[in-house]
């Protein structure tokens, strides 16, 4: 009985997933979602990196400060990402559907194209919201252990910076795979950007400023 329930649930989910894949293909959303994901995850990771390095240089050794400010920043990035992508993507998609309606001399309400377009808008908004938030939360996560007293603030900062740099390197690897080019080279480009942010922080902030 439970086996039958599980298999019917599995086939239902599989069907929904295939439908979603079809809609993504029709709306050509794969490319834009990939772009949103990398751009915004990079944004979130570097924002947090700048914040962590800045806080460390300023001499503050309070993990609560990083956690509360970091969480607020990641929520703000998520909300702004969601709303921004939802509105801009909706406007762009609506324009495309209207152009198509003109070419076809018909209304496309409730058509597959209309549905695919709506799906792309929602997925773009979710990607734009979740990518920076998750990247920022991952970077800030070592401070949870520091707050619990398991590791010192300095170790947490070291781990946080390492995780962030590893994350941007992985985003570079992903881009390298997308471009079918040199994955390591792309990884180093992104890593260089991360190191540049850290260096800028060292130069622009500090206990003396």
């Amino acid at each position, binding site marked *: 009985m439970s086996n039958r329930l599980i298999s019917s649930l599995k086939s239902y989910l599989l069907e929904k997933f295939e439908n979603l894949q079809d809609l993504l293909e*029709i709306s050509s959303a794969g490319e834009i979602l990939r772009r949103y994901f990398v751009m915004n995850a990079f944004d979130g990771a570097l924002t947090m990196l700048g914040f962590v390095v800045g806080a460390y240089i300023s001499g503050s050794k309070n993990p609560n400060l990083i956690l509360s400010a970091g969480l607020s920043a990641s929520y703000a990035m998520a909300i702004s990402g969601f709303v921004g992508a939802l509105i801009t993507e909706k406007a762009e998609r609506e324009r495309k559907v209207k152009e198509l309606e003109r070419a076809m*001399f018909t209304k496309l309400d409730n058509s597959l194209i209309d549905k695919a377009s709506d799906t792309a808008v929602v997925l773009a908004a979710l990607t734009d919201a979740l990518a920076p938030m998750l990247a920022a939360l991952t970077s800030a996560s070592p401070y949870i252990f520091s707050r619990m007293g398991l590791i010192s603030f300095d170790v947490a900062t070291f781990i946080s910076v390492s995780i962030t740099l590893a994350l941007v390197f992985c985003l570079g690897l992903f881009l390298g795979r997308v471009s079918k080019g040199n994955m390591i080279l792309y990884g180093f480009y992104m890593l260089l950007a991360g190191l540049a942010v850290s260096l800028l922080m060292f130069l622009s902030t500090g206990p003396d400023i």
Partner: protein
Amino acid sequence: MSSNSKIGVTKLTLDVLKPREVKITDLALALGEIKGIENVEIYVTEVDAKTETLKITISGWDMPPDEIEELVNKYGSIRSIDAVVVSKKR
């Protein structure tokens, strides 16, 4: 009503315009799932920048024209019904 009088639509030829993003294989498979349809043939007759014109020939027994129209209009839009064949039950 058609099943009582034992006559039904056995062949339909449609002139359809669809966006280029929609795959004709998806449309053909979706049509094939409608009750009564046994055979679906789709030919692309014209390709434009944003659209494609299709000639769709569907055959079977006692096919539901309304359901077919509704489905095709989900994928594109029917410009005209170019041919219809109605037969008595074999």
